[in-house]
């Protein structure tokens, strides 16, 4: 088989001669992203883990990145595909800046672009193996949306990916309300992340919380959450079973 030099041939959205291929499975993956709208904008949380199957291989991966001035993108799923998406978005933002017309891409536009990319890849049976969360604020309007690897796209007041769908969403449904303060928002997200820490085997105890407001994006330093294990039932669960510990 002749090995043709692939000069960035991977972009089958724009390049018709790209090799017919399909992504079969992810290798290095990030776990859940949880995000909520709050009073001043959007808060998003993710851990810094990159799993390689069941091995927690990488512990310093930033899965949330600022896009342009008004948006914040969080990704779960295959990290190499996330890195590729960041390259596409770099190009998008660059071209937007080159117009030099005072306009800049808002979160709605970025979300729409991502939806098109993800859906078109899905149609070619070569998905980018990610679930993306796009949050942002422009002209005082907060925006929070999600796109999955099959192109399902929607906006909501609170979103979660992966295990977060099952563990974080119920908490958010009960406890989210409009105009949360920054402190309450962070506490809510931490509540979700703590549950994920206890229950998601791919989660690691090193997380970041990112905030996006009209002023811009801030991603916190990495930090760890305290966990509680001193339940009486854990102390001596085998009291009844003689000889067990």
């Amino acid at each position, binding site marked *: 088989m002749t090995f043709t030099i692939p000069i960035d041939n991977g972009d089958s959205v724009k390049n018709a001669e790209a090799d017919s291929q399909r992504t079969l499975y992810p290798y290095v993956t990030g776990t859940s992203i949880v995000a909520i709208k709050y009073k001043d904008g959007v808060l998003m949380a993710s851990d810094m883990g990159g799993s390689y199957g069941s091995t927690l291989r990488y512990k310093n*991966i930033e899965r949330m990145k600022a896009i342009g001035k008004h948006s914040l993108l969080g990704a779960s799923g295959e990290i*190499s595909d996330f890195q590729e998406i960041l390259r596409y978005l770099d190009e998008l933002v660059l071209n937007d800046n080159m117009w030099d017309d005072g306009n800049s891409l808002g979160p709605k536009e970025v979300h729409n672009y991502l939806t098109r990319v993800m859906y078109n890849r899905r149609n070619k049976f070569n998905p980018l193996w990610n679930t993306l969360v796009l949050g942002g604020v422009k002209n005082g309007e907060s925006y929070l949306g999600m796109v999955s690897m099959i192109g399902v796209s929607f906006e909501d007041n609170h979103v979660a990916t992966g295990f977060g769908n099952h563990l974080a969403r119920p908490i958010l449904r009960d406890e989210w309300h409009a105009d949360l303060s920054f402190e309450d928002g962070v506490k809510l997200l931490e509540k979700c992340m703590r549950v994920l820490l206890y229950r998601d085997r791919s989660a690691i105890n090193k997380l970041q919380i990112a905030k996006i407001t009209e002023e811009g994006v801030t991603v916190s330093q990495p930090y760890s959450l305290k966990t509680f294990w001193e339940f009486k039932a854990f102390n001596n669960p085998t009291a009844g079973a003689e000889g067990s510990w």
Partner: protein
Amino acid sequence: MMDLNLDAPHSMGTTIIGVTYNGGVVLGADSRTSTGEMRFPLFFTLLGCTLRIELPTRSQQLTDNVYVCRSGSAADSQVVSDYVRYFLHQHTIQLGQPATVKVSANLIRMLAYNNKNMLQTGLIVGGWDKYKGGKIYGIPLGGTVVEQPFAIGGSGSSYLYGFFDQAWKENMTKEEAEQLVVKAVSLAIARDGASGGVVRTVIINSEGVTRNFYPGDKLQLWLEELEPQNSLLDILNAAGPEPMAI
């Protein structure tokens, strides 16, 4: 045991390591290439490398100041590394100065990511450039690029996660870093059937490149390993004590 499949892909079950230290990087690897179930010490002398009659080199030079450690499919990693050497050569000519480690890593990423369905190779790129100093980039299956203070890869790396969690520290000296790498590869060789042979290290810093060679029989002995002997006869002959001389 006798299902010798000589057509099975030559894969580098192996151990590769890259470590930054205060002033540069140290790359290290074992030298074994294996095929299916059998190990072929002579076989891999000829086929595991490109036409050189020596144990295969796992650490390959990309440019004067950047090296890559290869693991996974021997063929895939060789061809990727050959292409990147070719690209970097042209890039260096155009640029007029040595390529940076980041550029080297990104070129590898380009090939690894765009051909992810066909390639099965994990690589560690390490080097030194005048802008950022010593840098290590891990490029696992799939084509993710991760800049790390140290990186491990290959089948033998499974046995080293715990070791590095405990033994790694920032800002080591060159000697400490190299000792750590040799110790780690040696520990992996002890437990991973697909790793073995000799340990080769490459130290890259502002002064240049130093290659070192540690033959398998000169490495420290680990648990349940015994001093190698020429023959049982030597042991038996040495057993009887000489009468004490007055």
